[in-house]
C-alpha cells in the first residue's frame, strides 16, 4: 500500500477534496490536470481507497481501466495515480465543518485540529447504508441485525464472521455480494428477501452471487418481525401484496442468527447540509451543474454524495470532471453557464447533471423507476436510442453530443424511457 502523507499541512490549498474513495481520488487527479498545484485529499480511514478496500471481489474497472480488477486493486491504481500527480493525502482525518468561504475545520491524529483554506472544495464523502431503523422492521432489538456493508467489513477486513446462519433483507448489490462471500466462508445463507417485485442489484450479481450458489431470492417478500432477546434467533418473513402490505396468513419463520440488511444507500451529506447546499429531493444529493459545481460557488461534488452509482467506473469518470471543474475554478478559469435543463419524464427518476450546455459533450446518468424491455430512450425530439431493456438497479448513461442540439433553441428537454414503438405521450 502506497500512501504518502503530507509531512506538513499547508494553511491554504488550491483544491481540498473531502473523501479519498474512488470519487475523491479521481477528483484530485482531475484538479491536478487542470493546473491546480496544491491539492489535498482528506479521509477518515487509516488508509485511502474508501469502501473499495473491503470489496475484495472482482468486477471493477472494466469501463474505466479496460480490465477486470478487485476493489483493492482498483483502489490501489487510483491511489498511485493520485500520488504520481503529487496529490497530498491526509488519512485518519475528518472534516468537521466547511464554511461558505471554503474554510475547512479538520481534525487528524497526526496534525491535531486546524483550519485550512481552499480555492475550491470537492465533496466526495460517498454514501451510508440505510439501516433497520429507517424501515422500522417490527420486533425485538437483539444483536445480529447489521448492514451488509458492516458484515463485509467484519469478514474482509476483520477476519471475523457476522454469524453462521444468515438471512438477507433487500437485494442491493452489497447484500448479493455478501451472500456469495459468506457461502464461500462456510456460512449458511438462507435466502434473500426483496419487497419489490424485481431485484435491486445488478443482474450479473443476481446470477453470479445467488443463482450460482443456489441461494433463493424471494421477490415481493419482506421481513415482518425480528425475534431474539440477546441475539437474533429467527425472522418472520411474509409475501406482500401490490400495495406492499404483508400477507400475514402466508408468513413463515426463518431460523437464523443474523439478518443482513441491504436496502439501499443514502448520500452522506452532513457537510452539504452544513453548507446549506441546494439538494435534489429525489437523489437527496446536492444539485450540480454540468461541471459538478453545487449551489455554492467553488464547492463541487461527485460520486455517491451526488447520486448512488451502480459501477465505480462511472464514479471515477464523473469525479474527474468534478476535479477539473474545481481545478479550473481555483485557477480562475470561468465555466460557461449551462443553458439546457433536462427534465425527467416517463420512467426516469432523475438526470445527473440536471443541466448541460449546448457546446460540449456531456455524459448524463439516469435511473429508471421500473423495469422495461424493449424500450426507447428519448431526449425531447432531438434524439432517440433503442434500448434492449432498462432496470432500476442499473444506471442509464446518455452521451449528449453537441450535434444533437444543433438548431435547438429551447431551454429544456424532457427525457423519457417508453416501451419500444410507442409515441411519447405529451
Amino acid at each position, binding site marked *: 500500500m502506497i500512501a504518502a502523507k503530507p509531512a506538513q499541512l499547508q494553511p491554504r490549498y488550491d483544491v481540498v477534496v473531502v473523501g479519498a474513495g474512488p470519487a475523491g481520488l479521481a477528483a484530485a487527479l482531475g484538479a491536478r490536470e487542470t493546473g491546480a498545484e496544491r491539492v489535498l485529499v482528506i479521509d477518515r480511514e487509516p488508509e485511502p481507497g474508501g469502501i473499495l478496500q473491503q470489496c475484495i471481489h472482482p468486477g471493477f474497472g472494466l469501463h474505466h481501466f479496460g480490465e477486470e480488477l478487485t476493489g483493492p486493486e482498483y483502489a490501489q491504481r487510483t491511489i498511485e495515480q493520485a500520488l504520481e500527480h503529487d496529490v497530498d493525502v491526509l488519512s485518519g482525518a475528518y472534516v468537521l465543518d466547511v464554511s461558505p468561504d471554503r474554510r475547512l475545520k479538520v*481534525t487528524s491524529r497526526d496534525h491535531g485540529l486546524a483550519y485550512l483554506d481552499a480555492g475550491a472544495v470537492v465533496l466526495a464523502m460517498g454514501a451510508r447504508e440505510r439501516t433497520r*431503523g429507517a424501515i422500522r422492521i417490527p420486533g425485538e*432489538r437483539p444483536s445480529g441485525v447489521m448492514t451488509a456493508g458492516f458484515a463485509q467489513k467484519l469478514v474482509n477486513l476483520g477476519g471475523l464472521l457476522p454469524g453462521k446462519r444468515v438471512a438477507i433483507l433487500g437485494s442491493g448489490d452489497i447484500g448479493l455480494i455478501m451472500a456469495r462471500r459468506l457461502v464461500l466462508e462456510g456460512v449458511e445463507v438462507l435466502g434473500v428477501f426483496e419487497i419489490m417485485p424485481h431485484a435491486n442489484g445488478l443482474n450479473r450479481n443476481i446470477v453470479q452471487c445467488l443463482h450460482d450458489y443456489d441461494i433463493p431470492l424471494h421477490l415481493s417478500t419482506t421481513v415482518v418481525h425480528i425475534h431474539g432477546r440477546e441475539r437474533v434467533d429467527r425472522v418472520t418473513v411474509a409475501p406482500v401484496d401490490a400495495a406492499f402490505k404483508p400477507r400475514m396468513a402466508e408468513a413463515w419463520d426463518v431460523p437464523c442468527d443474523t439478518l443482513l440488511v441491504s436496502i439501499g444507500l443514502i448520500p452522506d451529506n452532513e457537510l452539504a447540509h452544513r453548507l446549506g447546499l441546494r439538494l435534489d429531493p429525489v437523489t437527496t444529493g446536492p444539485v450540480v451543474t454540468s461541471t459538478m459545481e453545487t449551489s455554492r460557488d467553488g464547492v463541487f461534488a461527485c460520486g455517491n454524495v451526488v447520486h448512488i452509482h451502480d459501477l465505480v467506473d462511472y464514479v471515477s469518470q464523473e469525479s474527474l470532471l468534478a476535479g477539473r471543474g474545481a481545478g479550473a475554478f481555483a485557477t480562475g478559469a470561468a465555466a460557461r453557464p449551462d443553458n439546457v435543463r433536462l427534465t425527467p419524464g416517463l420512467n426516469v427518476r432523475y438526470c445527473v447533471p440536471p443541466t448541460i450546455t449546448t457546446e460540449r459533450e456531456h455524459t448524463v446518468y439516469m435511473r429508471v423507476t421500473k423495469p422495461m424491455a424493449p424500450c426507447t430512450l428519448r431526449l425531447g425530439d432531438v434524439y432517440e436510442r433503442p434500448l434492449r431493456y432498462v432496470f432500476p438497479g442499473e444506471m442509464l448513461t446518455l452521451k449528449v453530443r453537441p450535434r444533437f442540439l444543433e438548431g435547438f433553441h429551447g431551454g429544456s428537454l424532457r427525457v423519457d424511457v417508453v416501451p419500444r414503438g410507442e409515441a411519447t405521450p405529451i
Partner: protein
Amino acid sequence: MRYDVAVIGGGVIGCAIARELSRYRLRAVVIERECEVGLGTSKANSGIIHAGHHGAEGTLKGELEWRGNQMWDALAHDLHFGFKRVGDLTCAFDEEQRATLRRILEQGQRRGVPGLELWGPERLRREEPNLSHEIVEALYGPTAGVVNPYEACFMLAESAVLNGVDLLLERAVRGIRRGEHGFDIDVEVTGTGAQEHVRSRFVVNAAGLFADDIAAMVGAGGFTIRARKGEEYLLDKRLIGFVKRIVFPCPTPTSKGILIIPTYDGTLMVGPTAVWAEKDDLTTTAAGSAEAFAGARKLAPGISEADTIAEFAGLRAVSDAEEFVLGPSRVAGFVLAAGMQSPALTAAPAVATAVLEALRDDGLELVAKDDFEARVPEPVRFAELSYAEQRSLVARDPAYARLVCRCEIVTEGEVRDAIDRGARTLDGLKFRTRVGMGRCQGGFCTWNCMELLHRRLGMPLTAVTKRGGDSWIACERLPVHGQAPAAERVSAGGSAEATP
C-alpha cells in the same frame, strides 16, 4: 460480604438511592442482573423531567413529581449528565380540553409550580410554528426538562461507587431470607450460574418490573407489578428545532398520550404508546408505529415516518393501584421503591430521599460522611467544546483528534474514557458517549468501538457484545478448505486478507 443496605436493582431508582446512601457512613451494595446499570426501563423511556403540574393532587406520583423536578439541576451540575429545561406544552383542540388545561393549571399553581401560562393560537404560532393550527390553546410549563436517562444512571452509579458503594453486576437475586441480624440474599451470577450470598441488615427493593417477585421472596409481597409497553421512534437530526418544547396532547384520565419530545441531544422522538405486555416483550410493532406517528402528526402535521432512524420499546412497571409503592413493607428492614412508572424518572431523587427516611424509621443510623464527594470528573465531550478548547485538548492528547463516530462527532479519546469509567459493551459505550446513536446507527463506528474495547481491555473481538449475555457481534471465521482456523491466520490488528 456483610452490608448495611443492599439495593436490588440498578435502574435510575436504585442508582439514585445508592448515591444518596453514599453520603453516609455505611456499607451499601447495588445488585443488578444486567451487565451495566440502567439497561432496563431506565434506558428505554421518554427522558422527560415533568414540569410538576401534571400529576394529580393527593397522590405520591403527583407530589414527588414536583419535589423531584426541583432536584435535577443540582444533580446535573454535580454529575455532568445531559439535562436542560426546555419547557412543555399541553395542547387543547376544543372547549372541553381547554377546561382540562385550566384544571391542570390551577393544580400546578396550588402546588407552587412557577411560570405556568396559557398560550392562545397567536403566541403558539410564533413560538412553535410547526404545531397544528387546530390547537386552540396550550398550557406552557417552563419547568419541564429533558434528560439523557441512561447517562443519569451511569453518573449516579459512578458517584455512588466513587463514594464507596459496591456495584455487583450480572447478579440475579434468586432468594431472600430474613435472619436474626438482617437478610441473606442468594445471588446467581448470570452467564456462569455460580451462586453467591450477600448479607445485609436492610434491603431496598428497586427491582422495577420484578419488584413483586423480589418482595414475595421475603414475604413482603401483596402487590403485583404489570408491564405496560411503550414504543418510541427517534427521528433524524435534520429535524432539530422542528419543535422546541415537549408537546403533550390534552391528557385523558388514563394516559398522557403520544408526545413529541425534543431529546436532550436535539433529536426528535415520538411516542410512547401504552399497551399491556409480558415482562420480556420489548418488541416494536407496526401497530405501535402507526399509533405513534398518527398521534404525533395530530400535534405537528409535518412529522413523517420517513425520518425515523431508530425505534425502541420500554416497559413501565405498573402497580395494581397505578401508584408508587414506596416506603416500609410488612417486613421490618425491607423497604419498597416499586411501581415506578411515569413520572418515576422525574421523581427519582425525591424517591431516594423518601427511601432513606423509611430506612431511618426502620432503625438505620444515617451519619453523614465528611469526605462525601458530590461531583464526578466531567467527561470530555469534544463536540460541545469551543475551537480553542478542542485545540488544546487535542494538543494534550491526540486520541481526541481521531474521530470514531461521525454522525455524533465522538472521538477515540471519549470512547477510551467511557471504557475506563466502566463501559463493557457497545450499548454501554453508546449510552455514555452517543457513539452509534446517530443516523448511520453504528454502520461506521461499531468496528472502531470493537477495536477500542479489544485494545483497552484485551477483550477478544469475538467477546464484544451489544449488551452482555449472548448478544455477540462476530464469531470466528470458520475453517474453510482445510485451512487453519481464523484466529491463527488473522493478526490482532485485523489485516485484510485476499481470499478469493
